[in-house]
């Protein structure tokens, strides 16, 4: 630590060069944070999936509906705690660009199935008492400035009411929060009984998919097999998989996001590596003489390497911290695509990876100039004074 002052002065020597390099490191880490958040938004749902939940859907495709009578049959299958269902409503609020999910659910079972949804008890009571009641996540409520007591009209692209209209009115009776920041608080949920009674003949008694809570997560594969066997050779065969696999399937449907993000990050860091490495190499070259003096007064090779590496690491860690902090500020302002990426946030894990990466970047860019400095012969170096 006693050499910190020397390292700091070395960095300050060419203020312009140091600050330009620092800024490009900052930019690289802002990008890192930003891409982490994008990736989190697109594939992060997998981590939030309950290990004790299975999703049951129609075997042919998710758009085929399943009979509501399956619920009772599922409840009787060994290993199943209980089952409940949801259906894709496909509604539009005012403009198709205002995308968010709305699904009819069975309120009590739904809340029991999803402990990650935090709804105040009095709002839950109100929901159970209001047929047209709906609960909406904090994020969507904030986005459209909805308050409890508001009545919101949603145009369904799929479901028609008996009078032939597509407009469904819902009373907002509750606003829920997520248990942690990865919980998606954009969807709206409303009551299945209201939905089933009000929809036209088509689809009555049919639901989109089931969620099953299993008693023992380690038995997931066996229970899934039993569920599919139960409905085999019926007009609506099922496909059952753990919630994580189901969500991952959606993420994979969008494309190989992880690969694309990794490629972009690779390009960014390679570039920054060059810029920083170049700065360090220049700094060492300019100071050949001084390094010779340090060696002459008894600095060991190890200490010289340490000094150069400490300088490059200080630069990259400083840049990394600033960049990650800036990214965090930008990301906290929310989804830049207005609604397409509901789970847009900066995961803590990636924040730590970013910090680690800044150290690695410092070591990689500093190592060659450091070795170069170490190999200097005192006499040669002094001659260049």
């Amino acid at each position, binding site marked *: 630590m006693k050499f910190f002052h020397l390292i700091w002065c070395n960095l300050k020597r060419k203020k312009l060069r140091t600050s330009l390099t620092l800024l*490009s490191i900052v930019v690289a880490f802002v990008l890192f944070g930003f891409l982490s958040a994008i990736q989190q938004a697109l594939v992060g749902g997998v981590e939030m999936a309950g290990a004790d939940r299975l999703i049951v859907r129609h075997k042919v495709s998710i758009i085929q509906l399943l009979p509501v009578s399956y619920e009772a049959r599922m409840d009787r299958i060994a290993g199943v705690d209980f089952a409940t269902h949801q259906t894709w409503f496909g509604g539009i609020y005012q403009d198709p660009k205002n995308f968010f999910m709305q699904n009819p659910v069975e309120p009590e079972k739904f809340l029991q199935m999803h402990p990650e949804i935090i709804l105040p008890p009095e709002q839950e009571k109100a929901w159970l008492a209001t047929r047209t009641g709906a609960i909406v996540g904090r994020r969507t409520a904030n986005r459209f400035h909805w308050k409890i007591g508001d009545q919101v009209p949603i145009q369904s692209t799929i479901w028609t009411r008996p009078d032939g209209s597509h407009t469904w009115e819902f009373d907002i009776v509750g606003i829920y929060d997520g248990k942690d920041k990865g919980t998606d608080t954009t969807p709206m949920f409303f009551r299945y009984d209201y939905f089933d009674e009000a929809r036209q003949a088509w689809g009555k008694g049919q639901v989109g998919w089931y969620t099953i809570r299993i008693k023992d997560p380690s038995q997931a594969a066996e229970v899934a097999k039993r569920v599919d066997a139960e409905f085999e050779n019926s007009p609506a065969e099922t496909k059952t998989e753990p919630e994580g696999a189901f969500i991952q399937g959606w993420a994979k449907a969008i494309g190989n996001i992880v690969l694309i993000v990794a490629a972009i990050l690779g390009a960014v860091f390679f570039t920054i590596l060059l810029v920083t490495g170049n700065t360090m190499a220049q700094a060492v070259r300019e100071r050949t003489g001084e390094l010779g003096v340090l060696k002459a007064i008894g600095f060991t090779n190890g200490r010289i390497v340490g000094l150069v590496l400490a300088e490059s690491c200080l630069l990259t860690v400083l840049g990394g911290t600033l960049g990650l902090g800036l990214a965090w500020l930008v990301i906290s302002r929310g989804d830049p695509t207005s609604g397409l990426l509901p789970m847009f946030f900066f995961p803590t894990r990636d924040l730590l990876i970013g910090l680690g990466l800044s150290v690695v970047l410092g070591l990689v860019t500093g190592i060659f100039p450091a070795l170069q400095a170490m190999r200097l012969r005192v006499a040669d170096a002094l001659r260049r004074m």
Partner: protein
Amino acid sequence: MAGPINWFSQIASITKFGLLSIPQRRGAVVATVIGIAGVVTVLVGVLSIAAGFRQAMTVSASPDGAIVLRSGADSEMVSGFGRDETRVIADSPGVARTAQGPLASAELFVIINIPKRSTGTDANVPLRGVEPAALLVRDNLKIIRGRMFDWGKDEVIVGRGAAQEFAGLEVGSKIKVGRYEWPVAGIFSADGGVAESEIWTDAKVLQDAYNRGDSFQSVSVRLNSPGAFQQFKDSLTSNPQLNVKVVRQSEYYAEQSETITRLITTLGFLIAFLMAIGAVFGALNTMYSAVAARTREIATLRALGFGSSAVVVSLMLESLLLALVGGILGGGLAWLAFNNFHTSTMNWQSFSQIAFAFKVTPELLVRGIVWSALIGLIGGLFPAIRAARLPIAAALREL
């Protein structure tokens, strides 16, 4: 004293001087050039995804084609018609006719699970039931392997993109639809359009398999001329028997692709913009050190009577040139790596998969090079100004 010719020759000689000194600063120069190449690669690469997707969607549209959906439906998936309605639509004024009848195909649109080749996981592949006019309603549909399916038989034809992206869709293999197994009779192409992502079969066969009775989801028609659209639309929307939405094929596909292109372009620009800022810092660094290394030379030239504007212009030229090299390098790299890269993604309107290829279009390359030029100009401007302001006497004293 100096005419414009003299000014130009000053610029030329300073620039030449600068370029000749590049080998001495190769580390910094290479870092800048590669930095800018990286920005351009990412910019062009990301935008080529959007361009490819849009292209797949737009080549699907023929100018005299129109699609009729139930009003309120935003995709075929959620639309629905009975046989009576589709007949009224087909017989409306404006629809082109041949000896066999109107060029209108009432269609069904569902999705089925088929594993993706690349990941092995299930993907939602669109399965379309069509009527015989379907091949005439769309442009450029060709069977490229095998044959057309027989009408009324449990057979399918598969689009070229779908056959490439999803497993088990070769001629002769069978696809499983619920309890049925349907053989693949042929593979068709549609000029890279969205139909290539689909599997087609006879609408009647699909109605039976899905217990849809005699119902359809959309009607695709070919009109007498692109101008007949208004007449066709008016006759349908004023008909009290119908409750429909009539759109041109081009509008329909543009609407379908809007979400995903918006997502990709927003994110692509943001990422590239951030990277560009980083590259500007890199370029500034290089040019500042170039100026610092040549302080004495520049001062000598100024003492000899070279104008300060000539110094500024020539340094900016140097920076621009380096940036352009980076831009061309990046564009070329993006073209090599991404052009015609086949993939598939989800159409957010219908959850179905669309196979498409990334397209590095000339416009994208031009855009990439413009970006690199801007980076070069900004990166050169401040160092050039500093060089021009050098106090000559002080700089010469360093000799």
